[in-house]
């Protein structure tokens, strides 16, 4: 079934220019991706360390797992909260595609909510219980980790389907419509693997940071930095491999954009690969060298920059897949600048307020002197 059906664009014009919504969507997506990777990868690495530590009676691993697990509930809250705006702007700009792909995998998509509740409460239990000798804790932790992997799977599925409107009618006419997630394209597997190996890398970075922030126990610091560093480097190497696979699995005309046909796309791709390699090198130096914090920070900054570039590349891939069938910039716009300005003012004020409150709690405001 080759007929491409795409719902009509909403008759109500967008209240802000598409470029602004793209920018806000991309910006908030980056802020969402960081804690999300911590949850996904950090949870998996913490569980792995907890199992290894409990089985091999390696207290350091158990301690590291506990410290990592303690970060998870707050990271989940941040992931959900920071995940709202990109999804909001995505719906505003790509509604005809996003709602359709969601309906075509409706039950799995809706199940994200139930799975998220399981994962969220599971990680709370895993982080508060701390008793990794207890099989119940480990089972709950494993369920929570699995829950977030399933959510990642479903998100990749929906986001992949939404850029392939040529698949819509075939799925809608099949008996599986609404019941199965979409996996039927060669880019699905590499995209998912690329994504989750990236998360494991970030999980490794979390362990490294926990180690570097430890000042009193040199042994713990060494174990955490080493375990985290190995995880980061190993996962990043796998991620580069899955990235190559992902690139080769793209439609040839899309792949060629990154192979010289489009200068900007090619440059971004080159810089992203370079930054990933620099990040690996710097973090290897930080882990196995003199453990200088600035090297680590520089490595992490490279990872952050890579994430930003990857976000831009992701949107290039999306527009290239859609081609002329859905041109996001060709939508009616009737800007409501007063509301946009109110949002931006409140956003800045909100960030300042949150920053001040965090600062107050961290610096023990009012109690520090006593």
């Amino acid at each position, binding site marked *: 079934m080759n007929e491409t059906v795409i719902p009509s664009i909403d008759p109500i014009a967008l*209240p*802000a220019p598409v470029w602004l919504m793209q920018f806000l969507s991309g910006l908030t997506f980056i802020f969402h991706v960081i804690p999300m990777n911590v949850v996904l990868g950090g949870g998996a690495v913490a569980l792995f360390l907890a199992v290894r530590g409990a089985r091999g009676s390696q207290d350091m691993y158990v301690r590291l797992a506990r410290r990592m697990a303690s970060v998870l509930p707050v990271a989940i809250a941040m992931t959900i*909260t920071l995940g709202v705006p990109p999804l909001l*702007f995505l719906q505003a700009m790509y509604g005809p595609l996003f709602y359709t792909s969601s*309906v075509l995998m409706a039950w799995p998509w*809706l199940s994200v*909510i139930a799975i998220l509740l399981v994962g969220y409460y599971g990680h709370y239990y895993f982080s508060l219980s701390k008793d990794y000798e207890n099989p119940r804790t480990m089972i709950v932790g494993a369920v929570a980790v699995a829950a977030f992997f399933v959510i990642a799977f479903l998100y990749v599925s929906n986001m992949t389907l939404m850029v392939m409107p040529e698949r819509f009618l075939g799925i809608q006419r099949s008996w599986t419509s609404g019941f199965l997630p979409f996996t039927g394209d060669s880019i699905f597997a590499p995209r998912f693997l690329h994504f989750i190996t990236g998360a494991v890398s970030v999980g490794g970075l979390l362990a490294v940071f926990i180690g570097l922030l430890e000042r009193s126990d040199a042994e713990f610091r060494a174990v955490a930095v080493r375990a985290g560093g190995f995880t980061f480097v190993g996962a990043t190497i796998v991620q580069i491999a899955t990235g190559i696979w992902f690139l080769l699995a793209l439609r040839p005309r899309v792949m060629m954009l990154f192979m010289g046909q489009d200068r900007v796309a090619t440059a971004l791709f080159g810089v992203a690969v370079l930054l990933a390699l620099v990040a690996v090198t710097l973090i290897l130096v930080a882990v196995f060298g003199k453990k200088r914090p600035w090297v680590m920070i520089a490595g992490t900054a490279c990872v952050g920059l890579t994430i930003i570039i990857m976000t831009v590349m992701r949107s290039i891939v999306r527009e290239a897949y859609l081609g002329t069938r859905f041109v996001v910039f060709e939508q009616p716009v009737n800007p409501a600048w007063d509301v946009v300005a109110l949002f931006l003012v409140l956003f800045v004020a909100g960030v300042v307020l949150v920053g001040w409150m965090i600062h*107050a709690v961290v610096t023990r405001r009012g109690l520090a002197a006593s």
Partner: protein
Amino acid sequence: MNYPFWDVPLLGGGLVIAIIAIPHVFVSHFAIGGGIFLAWTERIGIRKGKPEYIAFAKRNTLFFVLTTLVFGAVTGVGIWFSIGLVHPGATSALIHNFVFGWAIEWVLFLVEIAAALLYYYGWSRVDQKTHQFIGWAYAGAAWGSLIVINGILAFMLTPGRWVETGGFWTGFFNPSYFPSVLIRTCVCLALAGLYALLMASREPPGETHDDLVRYASTWLLPAFVGLPIFAAWFVFTLPALAQDMFMGRAAVLTIFAALSMGISATIFAFAYLIAYRNPQSVSTPVALLFLVLGLAVTGVTEFGREAARKPYIIYDYMYSNAVLKRDVARLQQEGVLRNAKWSLVSKATPQNALIAGREIFTLACAHCHTVDGYNGVRLLVKGWPEPFIEHQLTYLDQLKGFMPPFVGNPDERRALARWLASLNPSTQPARTASVATDSLSADPLARGEAAYSAHCANCHTIDGRNAIRQHVKGWTQSVAYERLGSLDSMRGYMPPYEGPETERQALAAWLASIGNDAPAAGGAR
């Protein structure tokens, strides 16, 4: 018809939304009230030198934080997921109009989440003044998110001038905005009070128990005073049809409104007579029972509020089946199938009537009806002959005010009627025959009443809604007989009477008899 339809057997999409939305509404109101409760209770503790109040606020912080962060946040996203699946067209319209309203709500939610966490972690990490500030930031941001999202929710029921002018602020500050904000604020405080009552009831018997129970019960006072006033104001802002539906036109809605008031009154009576006046008698099971009643009244009221929007999903703009009001006339001419992007057929013909009918049901009806489950159409049309179904479809919005007009062309209406009639094949022949001659009774009045039940009772009651007694008041048998012959010309939306002669005579006799009788005790039948 712009988007593919998500078919949820038995439950229907609306119920899926309700299953997620009702717990969310309860928990979110309760969490917003909780933020204010914690900050205020801590303040009272500091001002009045009551450490037990501070300890009480501290003990309950984790619960409110977990409720807000986990259940509130996740089910809130859940509503968003579910409305996107069930009503993508309406969700898209709302997002296009209010995307920055939602973005502003998100900023407030971000502050709420951060402040809630910091309030929890800050109990022993900052001085009292700073902690109070964080508490009020938590409460203010939580209430701020309510006043923003309320604009979008109220808009769906009373968009006001937005339908003509468009624009964010016109839609946001719509006619029911302010009464809704006040109602929801009262509900937030009351639900926080009910939760606090439960927690206070767990204190060991003694002065602290009684003091905290009495204090918690006072949180229901704003709702006790404000809700009747604000609810009346709210009803006053509703469209006339929604008011009628609350006042008896839709029996379920009237029952829900009565339940909402009844349960609320019970809760307030409990709060005053038991919790405030006899705090020592408040035990945990009793407090829990009233918290559950709070959930029940939230569910009932929200359900009623949603139902009052029928036949629209966005009042005066989009019908509940996602058809824009302005498109109805065009679709009635062109047909829905021609405009349906995902349909198997593009035209209804006598040859494909059943397939086309099923498709039209999906497009025009299935947003509210399932076939066999919730609001199941098979049961609703049971016993209806095909011509009667078609007639009902022709005047759908006039006969049943809470339903949208049928949007297809005449061929599609016939196809849908055929398909609906096919749902109950066994009852079709019985309905086209005479019911009066089937009746064993020799009494013409009894046969007339049987004919009434068969032909008229689908739309009329005797003394209740659309009361037949009022319509036939003072009629003689011959007048009734004559009128039965011209029903469709007398009132355009009534079907012609098509029963046999003897049945018409019996029905006329019965109508004349009730038209000259006083209403029987017991009211509507």
